[in-house]
Each structure stands twice: as structure tokens, then as C-alpha cells.
């Protein structure tokens, strides 16, 4: 009698635990169906959210009605959900024909696993297409000297935004140096206004500070060495000084109280800036359009200011250097059929970044990555901001891709985790550098 009881017990216990096992292996995908797409046409996954979703849908509709033999079907996903979904789909050989992404380390993972096609020769056959884009955008699309993705959409540098109204009230100028930053922190704290807004729970938001500080202190070569996985690259004194500066800013109450529980997804960090609760915000240029929409004429009334990131005394970095996303990227799944690949390439050439799409991006406050758009930018109501972004993208001696995109997913996750702890002051700058040094080559 005892034996069957025990087995029944373990059976129940096992049954109770089944969800873990399923969850843990669902990415395995070896037992899933192998078909990669349905219906024969090329498929594409793209991010939901306005205004880009409408812009893309219009572009696809226009392409499909002009090319009935090469129709593209598009499915939309939310940003964070997409990042997990696409990885799982590629691992299970169920990727769409066109794989949307951010280039850099993620693309490298796909390319090294032979999941995406090499487009180098195709670009050579289509020199006009290659010449259409800013030259700098191909860096994040290139892995081991080969181009694996089509750059598209717009350039999105990180910009120091500020609230002009609050600066007027305080009678101060936007910061040009790190010393200015520290003195503005005192000024605004004295006024009862938070100096900087930050959505720290999202972690990549805090990362933007490190990206700029490291560039201004150590110049672009420090991160280049990290990116290339050189031994002890993270132990560079510039990294430790960067961490020290960040913790000084945290200790001086530079960031809004409760910053580590604010997320960027909810756009609460932007709301803090335009509602006058915070004086400044370091954020991607993509927040311009969002603030214009949600900020109740804050942008339209000219209250939003923007400047490049300040310099650090004795630092090596050129103040014209930028960081951010050089562009967005689209690759072709190597598992797609030849017919699907041809349709995708045709769409890359004729369907994406058409005149209508370029106009739509400019209208929404973004700078598309195509050459010769100066006239269009100058006729826009947002010409001041658009030209600022355009000049930065065009004139930057170095435009560093966001670290979490540039590094491998393994190193990027470790980075975000350690940045969070650095901002909480639960690790020292020295420990931060050591922890990150352990991820080199991973």
C-alpha cells in the first residue's frame, strides 16, 4: 500500500511543477512545428505604437497594391514583448521573412548562428540604395565586415532636454560642463524642483548617463575596446571615474526622488519634465514627438529646450560626439524561401523609406536616415529640433550605438543589472568595473 501512495504523491508534486518545466523549455522549440511562414508571401514583424505603425502600414499597403506578386504581410507586436518573441521564433526556426531589430550585438548573434542573410553583395548590386543613407548607419548593420541588415527609419540620438520656463525662473543657463551640472543641481534643489527626471526602473535610461559620461571622460576608444572584448577593457580608469561621477550626482540628489521606481514605458519621466516637476532630462530624441503629443502645448509653446551633453573638465571626448540609436534595422531570415527573400528585397528597395514615409517621419518629429533632406527639415514646424538632431547625426566625429544594443545580449543584461546597482549605490564604481570585466568576451 505504501509504494503506490508515494508514487501518487510524487505524481501530484510533479503535476504541480509542470508549469515550470514547460516554461523553461518552451524556448527549446525542437518539438514545435517547423513551417516558417504561411500563405507563400513574405512576412514581417514590426512594432506596434503610433505614429510609426500607421506610417509602416501605409508603406506596406502602397507597396502591396503596386506589387501584387510580392505581397508583404505585417504583424505588429509591443516593443518589449517583441524582443522576447523574435528571439524565441528564430531559435525555433519560425522567424518571419523580415526580421526587425536594432543591429549591433543582437544582429551579431543572429548572423553568427546563420539565421540572417548576408546582404553585402546585394548592396553592391544596388549602389543607389546604399548611397541613399547616412554612411554612419551601416556600422551597426555590419558583422565581421559583412552587411546583414538594411538600415531604416530615423536616427535617434540621446539629447539633454530642459524646461525653459524653469530655467528662466531660476535665471540660469543650460549646462555646458559637468561643474555647471553640479551647480544647477544645487539651484534647482533649492527651488524645490528636481534637477533631473529619470525613469530608473527601466535601467537603460540610467545607462544613457554612463554612455555620455564615458565618452566625455575617456573618449570613444574606451568603449570601442570594451566592444571588441579587449582584456581588462572595463578596468579603464575612465570607467571608474564615470561611475564615481554618477554616484556623486545621485548623492547630491541630482535625480528626482523615487527615480528607481519610475519606468520609461509609462512615460512618467517625460511627464515630470513637461509638468515642471523636473528641470532637465537626458533621453532619446524619440521623446520629442511623444512630449509634443502629451505635453499640452509644452513643446508647441517653445518651452522645451535641448542641448548637447556637457563636457567634463580634462576629458578626452569631443563634445560633438553623440550616442543613441543610429537607425533601426531589418534583416532577411535565412530560413525563408527564395521567393520570400526576393519579395523582401524588392520591398527593401522600393517599399521602405519612400518619399511618403520620409515625410511622415519628419512630420512626427524624427530625422529619417536619408541624405538630402535638409529642405524638408527646414519647412517643418519642428525645424529647430530636427536640424539639431540632423547636425548631431551628420557632424558627430563618433556616434556610439546604445551599449545595450551594441553588446551581446549576455553582456547587455549584466550591464543593465550592474548599472541599476551602481545608481542605487549598492556597488562601488570599482566593483561595477570588475563585475563588467567578467563579461568580456561573453
Amino acid at each position: 500500500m505504501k509504494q503506490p501512495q508515494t508514487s501518487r504523491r510524487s505524481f501530484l508534486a510533479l503535476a504541480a511543477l509542470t508549469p515550470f518545466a514547460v516554461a523553461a523549455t518552451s524556448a527549446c522549440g525542437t518539438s514545435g512545428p517547423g513551417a516558417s511562414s504561411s500563405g507563400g508571401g513574405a512576412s514581417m514583424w514590426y512594432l506596434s505604437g503610433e505614429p510609426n505603425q500607421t506610417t509602416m502600414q501605409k508603406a506596406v499597403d502602397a507597396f502591396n497594391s503596386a506589387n501584387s506578386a510580392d505581397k508583404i504581410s505585417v504583424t505588429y507586436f509591443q516593443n518589449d514583448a517583441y524582443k522576447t518573441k523574435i528571439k524565441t521564433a528564430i531559435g525555433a526556426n519560425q522567424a518571419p521573412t523580415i526580421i526587425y531589430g536594432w543591429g549591433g550585438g543582437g544582429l551579431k548573434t543572429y548572423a553568427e548562428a546563420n539565421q540572417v542573410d548576408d546582404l553585402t553583395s546585394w548592396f553592391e548590386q544596388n549602389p543607389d540604395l546604399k548611397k541613399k543613407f547616412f554612411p554612419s548607419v551601416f556600422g551597426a548593420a555590419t558583422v565581421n565586415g559583412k552587411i546583414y541588415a538594411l538600415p531604416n527609419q530615423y536616427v535617434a540620438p540621446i539629447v539633454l532636454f530642459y524646461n525653459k520656463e524653469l530655467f528662466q525662473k531660476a535665471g540660469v543657463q543650460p549646462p555646458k560642463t559637468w561643474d555647471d551640472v553640479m551647480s544647477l543641481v544645487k539651484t534647482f534643489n533649492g527651488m524645490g524642483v528636481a534637477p533631473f527626471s529619470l525613469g530608473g526602473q527601466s535601467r537603460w535610461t540610467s545607462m544613457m548617463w554612463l554612455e555620455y559620461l564615458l565618452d566625455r571622460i575617456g573618449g570613444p576608444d574606451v568603449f570601442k575596446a570594451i566592444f571588441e572584448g579587449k582584456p581588462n577593457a572595463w578596468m579603464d580608469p575612465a570607467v571608474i571615474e564615470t561611475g564615481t561621477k554618477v554616484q556623486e550626482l545621485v548623492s547630491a540628489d541630482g535625480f528626482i526622488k523615487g527615480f528607481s521606481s519610475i519606468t520609461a514605458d509609462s512615460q512618467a519621466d517625460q511627464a515630470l519634465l513637461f509638468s515642471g516637476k523636473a528641470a532637465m532630462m537626458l533621453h532619446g530624441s524619440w521623446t520629442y514627438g511623444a512630449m509634443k503629443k502629451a505635453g499640452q502645448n509644452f513643446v508647441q509653446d517653445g518651452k522645451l529646450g535641448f542641448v548637447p551633453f556637457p563636457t567634463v573638465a580634462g576629458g578626452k571626448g569631443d563634445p560633438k560626439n553623440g550616442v543613441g540609436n543610429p537607425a533601426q534595422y531589418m534583416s532577411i531570415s535565412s530560413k525563408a524561401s527564395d521567393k520570400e527573400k526576393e519579395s523582401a528585397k524588392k520591398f527593401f528597395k522600393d517599399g521602405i523609406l519612400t518619399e511618403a514615409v520620409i515625410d511622415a517621419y519628419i512630420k512626427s518629429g524624427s530625422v529619417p536616415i536619408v541624405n538630402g533632406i535638409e529642405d524638408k527639415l527646414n519647412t517643418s514646424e519642428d525645424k529647430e529640433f530636427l536640424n539639431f538632431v540632423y547636425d548631431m547625426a551628420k557632424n558627430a566625429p563618433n556616434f556610439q550605438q546604445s551599449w545595450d544594443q551594441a553588446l551581446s545580449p549576455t553582456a547587455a543584461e549584466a550591464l543593465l543589472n550592474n548599472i541599476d546597482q551602481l545608481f542605487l549605490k549598492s556597488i562601488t564604481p570599482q566593483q561595477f568595473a570588475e563585475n563588467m570585466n567578467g563579461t568580456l568576451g561573453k
Partner: protein
Amino acid sequence: MSNAVSTGPRGAVSLKDSKQTEQRKAALAWLTVPALFFFLVFAVIPLAGVLILSFASWDGIGAIGAAGLDNWFSVLADPGLYNALGLTFLIMIVSWLVQTPISLLLGVFTAGSQRYRAVLAVLYFLPLLLSSAAVAIAFKALLDPNFGLATGLGLPFLAQDWLGVPQLAIGLVVFVIAWQFVPFHTLIYQGGVRQIPKSLYEAAQIDGAGTIKQFFHITLPQLKYTIITSSTLMVVGSLTYFDLIFVLTGGGPGNSTRILALDMYLRGFRANLMGPASVIAVILVIIGLALALFLQRLGGKDKQGSQLEGL
């Protein structure tokens, strides 16, 4: 035996009976086949897959390579594992300590027959109808230090950095978990209390026992198995707390709410380290099994018997 068969009709009938019983048993055994099949496909095979992956190096996309014991050594040497283990047990124990008394008392209370109790029972039950993600998003919005409830109602003491300070964040996670799951356990206790025969209370009343004495001498002992059932679900279930914490804090601030299940997800799907993530999955399975077996054993040998029979 043959003697008994030949003695008369009664013996023949009993032989036929036992034969039928055996046939019925055989038929019943076949009925378990579909369940066993699904158990094999959805539990045993994935479990084996996880075990194999824990000895492999795989980034989730490329080829799977053998890693030997590397994953195990690296995970076991990682302080992050012990942080996650400690947090998992902390949340498990504190959740049990918070939820059990509340749901037990609420269950006893709502087991009464007055109409207002039925209404209250429905109200208590409402949080269970919401998905964890919705609960997490709602709490996150309410607790926002700048735009949340505190500002809306003008209550400055509520304006804490709830999710940004490690100690507050873990406390808040326990609170939200309790808010969501107390209704479920209340329901279990309510059912348990309603099964206790009225005659026990009548007898106690005749003997002059008051409400409190009745609770400690009748209700609580009679609920022994209900408590074990509810605790098993709570304890084993706490290993799977994931969605709520993932949405609420994402494991942060720092690593202060990065429990084992979340650690597994972040390693596997964010950091592309399927091997180490599988090691964590295996550890979770082992802990879950051990806890479930331990709690079942607490129930004693007579646990399969009906509670009513034991009168």
C-alpha cells in the same frame, strides 16, 4: 476456495464479483492512459529537456553544444543564485505567515450564513478575478511617487519610493501577493469550515464552550487538512511567483526582488544563457518536489481518509 464456490450460489456470486472488480480495475487503468500521455508530453519530456539543457551551452538561437558541468559550477558559484534562493524562501515564508491567518479568519467568518457575509465574500473574492499583470500595473500606477495615489489624495505619508527602495519593494511585493491570493485561500477555508459537522458545535455549546474555545478546539483541528492543502498551494505556488514581480519591479531595485523564477527567466531569455537558466529550472523542480513531499508528510498517514469518517 474451491470448496466455497461449490457450496452454493452465494460463493459463485462472490467469485463473479471479484472477477468483475478485476475487470473494472483493468478498465480503469486504461482510463489513465490519456492523462499519462499528457503528463509524459508536457511534464516528463520537458523536464528531461531541461535536465539535458542544464549540461549544454546554448544561446537560444544557434547550435546546442555540450558544456559538461560548467553551467552547474558557474551557477553554484554565483552569489546571484543565493540571493535569489534567499529571496524566494523569504517571500515564501513571509507570504505564508501573512496569508494563512488572514485567509483562515476570513474563511471562518464568511462560512456563516448571514446574507451580508455572502456579499462580503463576493467582494473579498474580486481580486482573484484580476490577472497578475493587471494587478501589478494597477499597483504600480497607484504607488507612483509623483503621480500616484499619494498626490491624488494629498496623503504625503503614502508618497514613499515604494518600488525604489529594496526593503520597501520586497515588503510591497509580499503585500500585493497577499492581496491577490488571500481571496483564493479564504475560499478554500470557507469550504473547509462548512464541512465541519454542526453537531460538534452543538455539543460544545451544551458543554458551555464559547466562540473562542470552539474556534481553537473544534474549527482549527478540523481544518488541519485544509490548512495543509492551502499551505501546499501557497508554498509550492510561491515558487512560481513571476508575472506579478516581473511587471511590478522587474527584479529590482538592484537585485532586491529577483526571485528564483525571475532569475531563471532573465538568464534564459534576456541574457541568452539557456544552460544556466536550465540549471535554475532544475533547482526549482528539486525544491518544489522536496517541499511538496514534506508538506504531504506533515499530513500524517490518515490524510487520505475523509474528515467526516473520523468523527
